[in-house]
């Protein structure tokens, strides 16, 4: 609760020249609406916002997603958006649809550590192809598998999307090498411990 109050105070104190806003709050789905409501109430201050990073604010309900969509639709200058540990699959497509429709200057989209599944990527790729706007895409630390790998292949093919930077780390795009890599990592870690003891 204290965190929410502190964040809403900060948002209330922002001026309309605000360029960068980073919110790291670790809010549950119960507390997140208060923060999102505070953001939605201050949207007239986000005209000049270039960079918005939100960490660990649970935006997983449809209502929360609507609030976030409302905020993002009022950030016409937004160039970088990071939503780390905020989302999950069901409502991402709708959010992306609103986002790519309104934030015409958005170039960097960082969606790391969100438990996103393949269906998110499958629905996101056509939007990215249509908008041809996103240059840097971070999808690391999600729950993507080979199906998302194929969808991303489609995004990269024919250069329609003009993606310059792509991070797909820490997903299980192929499970074939996963078990081998885990065994190797454990053995190496043990080996380093032994060197440390020597």
């Amino acid at each position, binding site marked *: 609760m204290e965190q929410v109050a502190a964040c809403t105070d900060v948002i209330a104190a922002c001026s309309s020249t605000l360029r960068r806003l980073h919110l790291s709050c670790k809010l549950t789905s119960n507390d997140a609406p208060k923060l999102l409501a505070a953001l939605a109430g201050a949207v007239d201050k986000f005209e000049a916002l270039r960079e918005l990073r939100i960490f660990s604010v649970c935006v997983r309900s449809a209502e929360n997603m609507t609030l976030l969509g409302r905020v993002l639709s009022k950030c016409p200058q937004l160039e970088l958006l990071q939503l780390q540990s905020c989302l999950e699959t069901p409502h991402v497509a709708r959010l992306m649809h609103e986002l790519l429709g309104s934030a015409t200057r958005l170039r960097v989209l960082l969606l790391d550590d969100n438990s996103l599944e393949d269906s998110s990527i499958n629905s996101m790729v056509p939007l990215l192809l249509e908008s041809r706007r996103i240059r840097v895409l971070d999808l690391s630390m999600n729950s993507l598998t080979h199906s998302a790998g194929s969808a991303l292949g489609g995004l990269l093919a024919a250069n329609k999307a003009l993606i310059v930077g792509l991070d797909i780390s820490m997903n299980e795009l192929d*499970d074939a090498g996963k078990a081998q890599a885990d065994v190797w990592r454990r053995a190496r870690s043990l080996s380093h411990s032994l060197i440390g003891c020597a």
Partner: protein
Amino acid sequence: MCLSTGAIGLSQGLRSNTSVQVLIARSCGFCEAGVGLLLDSLASSYVRQLDLSENIVDNAALRLAPLLQHSTSLSELVLSGVRLGQCVAFRAAHTAEQAAERRRFVRAFGDNTSLCKLDVSNNRLGNEGAQTVAEILGCNQTIMWLNMSGNRMTHTGAMALARAVRERTTAYSSSSSSSSSSSSSVVKLEYLDLRLNNLHAHSLELLAILEPVVSTLLIEREPEFQGTIVDGVQEV
């Protein structure tokens, strides 16, 4: 047999792509076949930074050769924890074919003129692998940052590296003092990480060779060493 379904889709997209400059695909579960497909698809790309760490690379590393030979943009290659020690290019050659593979691999690094940063840490390269990296340093002119930590290297491998670094610095001094504006001048190695190897007993000897020629050297200290220590690491 690895099917590499994720890598197949991704590599098909990358094959015709000319926009991707940074590809970070750490710990994606790619196996040797999958990594091979990805590297084949990147052979004529404009990728500047490539990170395939914590996947299974093994002999697929040999398929880096076309990318290295053709690319004028690749500046950072990160292959940490990918079992390079299993690749024939990093092992002693027992057949003429293996020796030829190893020569081709090393030559590919020699042909490249853009690579600045090479991370081959945590690969159990051993002394044989260190010898390959020493040969790479001997023929490549642009690498200035090298991470060799966690490779089970002992004095033999480290000395091969140290000699290669010293010779490279001599070549750098010669090329920089030369008045000719040759485009093939050697770049000095600025950063070398040798931590997490079996070098404790020889760290002073290595320091004596490397300290004058490498700006930042990371190596485990010897217990009786009296130099400046930062968190157990000697920073020169």
